[in-house]
């Protein structure tokens, strides 16, 4: 498992790190998607299982009612609303 999986995943982790560096250099790290990525990355090392599921949940729209109208735009990969934890801190 580790022999086969380690090097490709190592490469992906470095891509994440380089992306976070890059958005800072370009002064766009405040974008809500970058903030969501940093919050999601914290789940990788919290020592709890089901990391993939929990990261997907954290990047999801947590609301439950259908939207009245379509924005006409495609999904962006992270929810643009405020997660409950960020709201508390703000």
């Amino acid at each position, binding site marked *: *498992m580790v022999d*086969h*999986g380690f090097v490709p995943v190592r490469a992906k982790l470095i891509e994440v790190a380089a992306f976070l560096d890059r958005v800072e250099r370009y002064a766009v790290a405040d974008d809500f998607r970058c903030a969501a990525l940093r919050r999601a990355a914290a789940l990788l090392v919290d020592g709890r299982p*089901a990391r*993939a*599921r929990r990261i*997907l*949940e954290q*990047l*999801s*729209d*947590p*609301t*439950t009612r*259908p*939207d*009245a*109208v*379509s*924005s*006409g735009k*495609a*999904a*962006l*990969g*992270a*929810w643009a609303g405020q997660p409950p934890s960020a709201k508390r801190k703000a």
Partner: protein
Amino acid sequence: MRYIEPHGHMVSRTTDDYQAMVTAGCQAVCEPAFWAGFDRGSAAGFRDYFRQLTEYEPARAAKFLLPHYSWLCLNPKESEDLGLAREVLALIPEFLGRPNVLGIGEIGLNRNTRNELRILEEHVALAVRHDQLILVHTPHLEDKLKGTRLILDLLRGHPGVRPGRVIIDHVEEHTIQQVLDAGFWAGITLYPDSKSSPPRAVDMLEICGRERIWLNSACDWGVSVPLAVPKTALEMRRRGHSEDFVDAVLFRNPVRFLSQCPKFALRAESAG
């Protein structure tokens, strides 16, 4: 090796792809109706598309000795124009008797709006009325979790829906269990940048059981890999899964679901 591609948008693929799929062991391809990359302007545009899915594309696949099946609907992305959507819904029954039509799909939600839900409900009613199998598309990225919950609520609330005849596609780690727990089939889509990868798909099979799951490439005009399903067999074998496991997930599972439509048939030599 034998496998089924239960979800491929072949109208946007080349004949080279057909050749590669057949060479890799594909025994049948199923093509759900989907968005063309732009909103169609009229019901006549959909009628032409349904003719393509039921006449032209099966003939193209037949040149490679590959059985081709299709699913019909209006894609959730095009549900916002309720007038046009209802015109298209009215067209569908005349195509349901065609020999390669398996059911209604891929219906579902895109941005989780009220109009999308309305048209989803009307598609479900149509499927129940005509005793059709149902293939459901779940939304992309941050919309998937909410959309899956709305879809499950709607399907569970409809007395005519039999979960064993419905597959909910594009599940990921945060949606698969609720789909299976509700008695539906789950589809895992193998995409390079979104949805699932082969290692994650095999993780889900190991954790959730392989009973009611199929894998698909959902290859279309976007970034996608028509051979993603057979390529996933390598990941299974690397982890020590048996050839029986590979065959069950890649071939026997989709055949079991799809055979609920009496029109689904394989070439004699692959059915054994």
